[in-house]
Structure formats: C-alpha cells, structure tokens
C-alpha cells in the first residue's frame, strides 16, 4: 500500500526522554509505503490530532501509524481522528513505544532501537490493513445486579429510578448484606438498620426491581447489550406466595443447632429461618443440612403449624433464564478466617472476638440484646483491648498486603460507644498507624482519644495469652516509649482484614471479568474508569472492587448505575468488526474451530461453493459476528489455516514478525 503516514509522539518527556523521536521519524521515512512522517509533543492533543488530520487530507494518506502509548489508552482517539479526516478508522495502527518501550528502558540507544523496530512492525501491518465496518447489535433494556448489600441495593434503585428494569440476585435468604449486621455507622453514629431498612423496602416495592433472593448465578453467555443469564433459585421449601411471614414455623422448629450467620456465629438459629427480623423478603427458608424432615423424613412440625399452608418439602431448585443489557457486580466482602493468627488466641478463647462479632454484641437485636458481655461467662468486661491490622498490611503469606481501610474508623467507633455507654470500662487500642482520611473522620477519631479517653498505643501485639483466672494478657509493644507492654484484658477485639467474597472468583470467571491477586475485581482504568470492568457491559459496585466504607460504596453504586443507564439508553451498539472469518473455498468443515470457540460463535452450514469452476455443496464454518469476541483461538486451531481474524489476519501477524526480525 502506498500512502502511509507515521506520527511519533513525545508524550512530553514520557517517550522523548528515552527514545530519540527524531531518529524514529527518520527511520520510518525509509520504510516502504511511507510518504509522510513527523513527530509532535502531544499527538493526542487537539493540535496533534489536527496535524494528523491535515496530513491525511493533504498527502491523501491511506493508512496511518501512531507511535505513542498503549492502544488501550488512545487507539479509540486516533481512530476517531482518522475517521473525521476521511479514512476508515481500522486503517490506524498504534506502535506502543511508551509502556512497552520508553517506560521500561533507561538507555536511549536501546530504547530508540526498540521504538524503531516496533514502528517498523506497525508499518508492515498497516500495509495489509483493510477497511472494516462495525456491525450493530440491539440493547436489552434490563440490568442485572449481583449481590443485594448496600452496594447492590443502591445501584438497583438508581437504575430503576431512571426507568429501567433491574433484577437483584442475592445468594442469602434476604437482601441487606453486611450493613444489616452493623449496629451504628461512623462518623455520625446513626443506626445502621434505621438508614438501611427503608432502602431495602424501597427496593422490594419498586415496580422496576425484581428480587431473586436465595439465588445464585449459574451461567452467563452473550456480550454487552445482550447477556443471557441463568439464575438458580434455590429451593426455599416455603411457598413465597402463600407465606405471611408470621414466624410460627421458626418458633416451633425443634432443630436449633445451626450457628446464626447473621449473628456471626455467636448464637444459633432454627433450621427454618429468616436471617433477621427485618429480612426482605420476610419469607423463611429451610436449611436442608439442618432440617430433620428433609434429612430423615420425620418431624414436619413447621408444616403442621403453618396456617397458610406455605411449607413445601418437595420444592426443587428452579432455573430462570433472563436477558440483560448490563451486569453490575456488587458481591461485597467477608472477614478473613483467622486460622493463621493463633497467636491472638481467637480459636482458644471465646473472649477473643472479631469486630464484626462485637458489632452483633453491641446490637440490641444481637445475641446479648445489646449488653456488653463476655461470650465465655456473660460477665461485664472491665478492660477491653482492640488490636488493629489483624491480617491487613501484612507482607508475608499469612495475611493481606493491603489496608482494609475501614478498621481504624470502626475501632474508634467501638471504643467511643463503649466508653460512652460504660464509663467504667478501660479501652486500649493497639495500632500501627491511625488512618482516618474522610469527611469528619479524623475529628471523630480525635474525639475518641480526647473526649472519651480511649488509650491508643502505637505498637503491635505479639501474643494474647488466656490466663487460668479467665482473663487474657495482651503482650504488646509501645513503640513511642520503646518498651514491652503487658495489658490485662477481659475481652480482646480483633480488627480482622476484609477480603472479597470468595464467590467472586466463580462469578468473575463466568463474566470473563478480570480480578487482581487479592481477588478484587479490576477496573477498566484505575483513575478514569473506576466503576467499569475491562469486560464491556460489566460494572463494579462496592467492596468487590476494593475496600471501602458505606459513603464511598454508595457513591460508587450511583456511579455504576449511571454507567449502566448510559448503556441502556442506547438502542443499538456498534460491534467490534475484528471478528473471525473463514475462507469458505478452503474450509473442509472439520469442526476443530467450533470446539475451541469459548463463545459458541461458530456453526456449520452446507453451502454451494464454486471451486475453480467445480460447483458443489460443502459443509463450511460460519461465524456469528455478534457472538465472536475476536479472541483468535479458532485462527490458531484451524488445521488448514483458513480462519482469519479480521484486522489481525495471519498475513498481517507474519508481516509484523518479519519486520521485527529484519
């Protein structure tokens, strides 16, 4: 192809400091087909784009190569620019001479050599580029929110208020999530239930919102604008239409040994249960691992006492299939298991508890009806020690490398509430650093120290030893006084790290959404696209993306909602034209490509072909370009080399390799 333009960006000093951009321009001019080459400080700026457009018009360019940052950053920018100037946007190639070149090299000679090679490869490829035209796909005007905690509820409410249908899928029997378990919220100390339960009611009553509680995502297929999702509604063994929520079944159930998930395992619940009194829906479920009737066939008390006749032991799991335009992940978090922290005696003493357990103890609806009591003997504690960063900011394999972000604030909250309600209790907090950025947050922490007399000790705890008299000794260090410290306590509270809900791995795999080494979902861009997954049509809300408190979660939930609304407001989406395409004349219909396709995009048809004058009907592969995601697996698998990815054809790739090796 004759008429290629090359545009080399300095990116300020990002590229120009380690790559001799003038040399790259000079070398590009020597490549076959290149009729224009220039450099500029910021090619992505308006002035830079104008230079590209002007060159396209004046020199009648057919294709361009922009040597700049990663195509993930600005490929779309330069494609738009080319299109405006009158050439097909797929006649643009990016040579990434920043992330994969200038940023990783220190030596100018080496950096320049590599930039020249990458540019040469891109020129070789653009030589073989062809104009491509995106197709269109319809948008299903319905959103799915996975997870019914505050993140999911807020996202669903905001989407529904904009006028779109939303389904919330929640795996536990009620929506509400972790926030429902909290007693008070920082920094205003308003009651968590009082601000959450109205939102739960709003979500349940909203005409645009459908709740699937006690349900899990079974399968996801399709793509942005047109996902198909199978939802498993687990058998509740209670008919939701008949149940009045009177609660008699829970009172009568003789099997009361299961640990209450809602009360963090501090007390028990019946086999037929709602997690908490304000549960939505207020319809119990039967836990099949605990129910005597389901296990042995005997009992049936709940059925006998149910006035509404709602108990149904024969209920089966049900699969619901639904189409969605967008999916929001709001799967939230769990507190880490403390198996690796036996030095704090969590498994050895009932009086060593996690902060979430303390939250339930402090709650009027909790196992102690809100009275501060030791779980071992029900006695009122006189000395309480809080240990911060248990499993957070940990460099070894025991814990998590990140800061869990919420612990400093909730520990200050707990310390303050205890000192306020029980002035006779001494409270000591061991901390590494106190991290309280946020509106009214540091003021809140200082009130705990200055007004409520909480004893903050800078230093970590090495060990907690249970003593024969039932007390606990906390062996720590006071770094400011540089001395070892032994503090006697009746109760020790561990600020255990939080981690993404373990179910997120499976969900991320189904959505082909990427997760990081800590199982947090990855954003499309950490600063500029924080609520979008790199997978189109998948959005992130709440702690599944990273540790955050309630105000931040609610903000992010709203942001995710507006992104969903922006997508659902469109009637059609342009599809990526870089899809697989077989050469029908040479295809022998062997099925290898269909077997490797992860998206089910390839099928076979009997087609009449004209092979050099021989007309015959042959079985050939056909690609559904709406389903094809352009992964390229089929192009590699095809034994006859017949399958090509448009925009990344085998010839183009080989041309690039040849150019690099030249």
């Amino acid at each position, binding site marked *: 192809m004759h008429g290629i333009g090359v545009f080399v960006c300095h990116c300020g000093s990002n590229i120009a400091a380690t790559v001799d951009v003038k040399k790259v321009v000079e070398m590009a001019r020597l490549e076959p087909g290149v009729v224009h080459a220039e450099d500029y400080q910021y090619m992505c700026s308006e002035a830079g784009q104008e230079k590209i457009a002007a060159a396209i018009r004046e020199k009648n360019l057919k294709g361009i190569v922009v040597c700049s940052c990663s195509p993930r950053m600005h490929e779309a920018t330069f494609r738009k620019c080319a299109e405006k100037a009158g050439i097909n946007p797929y006649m643009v190639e990016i040579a990434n001479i920043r992330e994969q070149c200038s940023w990783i090299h220190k030596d100018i000679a080496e950096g320049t050599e590599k930039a020249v090679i990458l540019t040469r490869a891109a020129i070789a490829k653009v030589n073989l580029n062809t104009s491509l035209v995106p197709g269109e796909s319809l948008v299903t005007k319905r959103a799915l929110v996975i997870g019914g905690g505050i993140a999911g509820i807020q996202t669903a409410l905001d989407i529904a208020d904009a006028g779109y249908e939303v389904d919330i899928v929640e795996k536990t029997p009620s929506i509400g999530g972790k926030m429902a378990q909290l007693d008070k919220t920082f920094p205003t100390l308003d009651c968590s239930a009082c601000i959450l339960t109205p939102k739960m009611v709003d979500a349940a009553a909203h005409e645009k919102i459908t709740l699937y509680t006690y349900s899990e995502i079974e399968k996801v297929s399709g793509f942005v604008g047109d996902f198909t999702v199978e939802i498993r509604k687990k058998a509740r063994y209670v008919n939701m239409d008949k149940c009045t929520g009177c609660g008699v079944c829970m009172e009568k159930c003789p099997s009361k040994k299961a640990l209450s998930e809602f009360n963090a395992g501090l007390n028990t619940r019946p086999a037929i249960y709602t997690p908490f009194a304000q549960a939505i829906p207020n319809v119990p479920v039967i836990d099949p691992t605990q129910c005597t009737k389901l296990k042995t066939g005997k009992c049936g008390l709940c059925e006998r006492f149910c006035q509404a006749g709602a108990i149904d032991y024969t209920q089966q799991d049900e699969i619901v299939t639904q189409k969605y335009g967008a999916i929001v992940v709001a799967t939230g978090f769990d507190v880490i298991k403390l198996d690796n*922290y*036996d030095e704090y005696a969590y*498994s*050895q003493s009932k009086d060593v508890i996690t902060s979430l357990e303390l939250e339930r103890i402090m709650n009027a609806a909790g196992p102690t009806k809100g009275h501060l009591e030791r779980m071992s003997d029900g006695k009122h504690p006189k000395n309480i020690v809080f240990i911060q960063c248990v499993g957070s900011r940990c460099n070894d394999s025991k814990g998590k490398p990140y800061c869990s972000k919420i612990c400093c604030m909730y520990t200050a909250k707990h310390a303050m509430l205890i000192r306020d309600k029980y002035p006779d209790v001494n409270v000591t907090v061991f901390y590494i650093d106190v991290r309280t950025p946020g509106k009214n947050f540091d003021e809140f922490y200082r009130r705990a120290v200055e007004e409520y007399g909480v004893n903050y000790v800078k230093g970590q705890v090495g060990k*907690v*030893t*249970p*003593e*024969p*008299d039932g007390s606990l000794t906390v062996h720590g260090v006071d770094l400011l006084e540089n001395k070892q410290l032994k503090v006697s306590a009746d109760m020790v509270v561990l600020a255990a790290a939080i981690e993404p809900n373990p179910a997120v791995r499976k969900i991320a795999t189904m959505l082909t959404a990427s997760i990081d080494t800590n199982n947090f979902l990855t954003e499309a861009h950490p600063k500029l696209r924080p609520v979008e997954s790199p997978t189109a049509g998948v959005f992130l809300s709440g702690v599944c993306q990273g540790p955050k408190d309630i105000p931040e979660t609610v903000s992010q939930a709203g942001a995710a909602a507006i992104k969903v609304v922006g997508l659902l407001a469109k009637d059609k989406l342009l599809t990526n034209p870089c899809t697989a395409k077989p050469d029908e004349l040479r295809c022998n219909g062997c099925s290898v490509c269909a077997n490797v396709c992860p998206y089910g995009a390839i099928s076979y048809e009997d087609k009449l072909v004209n092979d050099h004058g021989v007309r015959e009907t042959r079985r050939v592969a056909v690609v559904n370009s709406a389903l094809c995601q352009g992964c390229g697996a089929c192009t590699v698998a095809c034994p006859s080399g017949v399958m090509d990815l448009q925009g990344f054809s085998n010839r183009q790739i080989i041309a690039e390799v040849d150019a690099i090796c030249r």
Partner: protein
Amino acid sequence: MKYSYYPGCTLRTKAKKLDDYMRASARVLGIELEEIENWQCCGGVYPLSSDEIATKLSSVRALNEAKEKGQDLVTLCSACHHVIKRVNDDMQNVEDIRTRANNYLKFDEPYKGETKVLHFLEILRDEIGFDKLKEKVVNPLTGKKIGAYYGCLLLRPSEILAFDNPENPTIIEEFIRALGAEAVIYPYRNECCGGYISLKAKDLSENMCNNIVNSADGFGAEMLITACPLCQYNVTKNSEKELPVIYFTEILAEALGVKEEVDAQ
C-alpha cells in the same frame, strides 16, 4: 522401619535418659535405629553467619552418611534437630553454602540436601501413627495431667522446620493423649525458655521460665514434658514453682512398660 540416628552430645552426658528411654521404646515399637558413625557435635546453635561453613560441616557429614545408606535421618534433641534441619535446608536452597561445603568435604557425589530429617516425634505421628501407638500402650497414664512444653527450636522458623503450627501446636498433646494421660493446654507452651541467655542474664531466663511454669500450673498441669535438654534444664532451674519437667521419652517408656528396665541399667 530402619533409620539413621543422630543422638548428639548432650544425650551422651546430661540428657542420657532422653536417649535411653527412646531407644528402649523404639525397640518395642519396631523402629530400627542405626547410629551415624563418628558423628560430631552439631554446634548446639544454628550458625546465622552466612559466610562461614565450618560450623555447618558436622551436620552435612551426618546428613550425607544417611544419604549414602538411603535412610532418613532421625534426631531426638530439639537443638540438634533444629540445627541439622536448617543446615539441610541451606544445602537444598543456598547455592553458595552448598558449593563451598561440597568443595571442602569432597564426597564421592556432592550432597544437595537429599536426606529427609525427622524428629522422633514425627516418626511417632507420621510413621507409626498415634492411634497405633495407643494400641501398644500397656501402662496407660490415666488421670495424669501433663503439659507439653515445645519451646521454640522445634517450631520455628516454621517454614523450614515444618513441624507443626508454631502458634497453636498439637503434636505433643496428641502424643500425651495417645499414652492415656490428659493434655493440659496453656498459652506459654511455645514460648522461649531463654536458651543460652541463662548463662549471661539469668534473671531474663527466670522471668521467662516463671511465666511458663506459672501458666502451666495455673491450668492444672502436674508435670511438663519436653524434647529439649536445654529447656529441661532452664525450666527446672530457673522457675520458683517446683513443677517436674521431664523428657517426653520417659513417659513413653513408662506407658510402653520399659521404663523400669531402663532405670535398672
């Protein structure tokens, strides 16, 4: 079951009983031990200086002899076990030490950490099995309340010793229960006794040993058992309460009915 066995110096002198009770018990359990020929002192302390190999050579010689016989190497003294296991880890993973030790020792074939190092307790747990040990008990220690004292050398550094959970170990408690006694759990069982600091700053060791003994006593232990001669010495000498501290092999021999024959020797 035939193993190479490295007793160590203390087991020839002050801690002779630790060794004697073990040998008698091993015979009952069918564990055959072949003592390393001409073994030398392990040094007593794992040498932390990484540029000196001389202090590691005796361990390497013992390890290599076991390798040549195709046997696992069994230890009994906590300190010897600690030193030999860590030197073996160096021979597996630290190229510089491996090269220099082999250059010096000139074995027929270089030693690269092939030998498996086992503490006698690990043989009881993993090779015999505590359930099988229980069957061999003729004289169950019913009613005795015994506290396990691990000390630090058997447990740490846990990724190398790989002996048990360093913060909440269970192996000696399971051993005690297999012999029919009650295992008393107390939080100081994995704390340090002070080790050799007792020679230089006795008060420090006294402080540590009193913590251990008072806690064990408070939780109802009538005696402590240990695998370490130095722990046995410190905890006995440096604590105010007179709680007996004996070797774990003594109660093993007693339960297996061979204690008297050893004592009579």
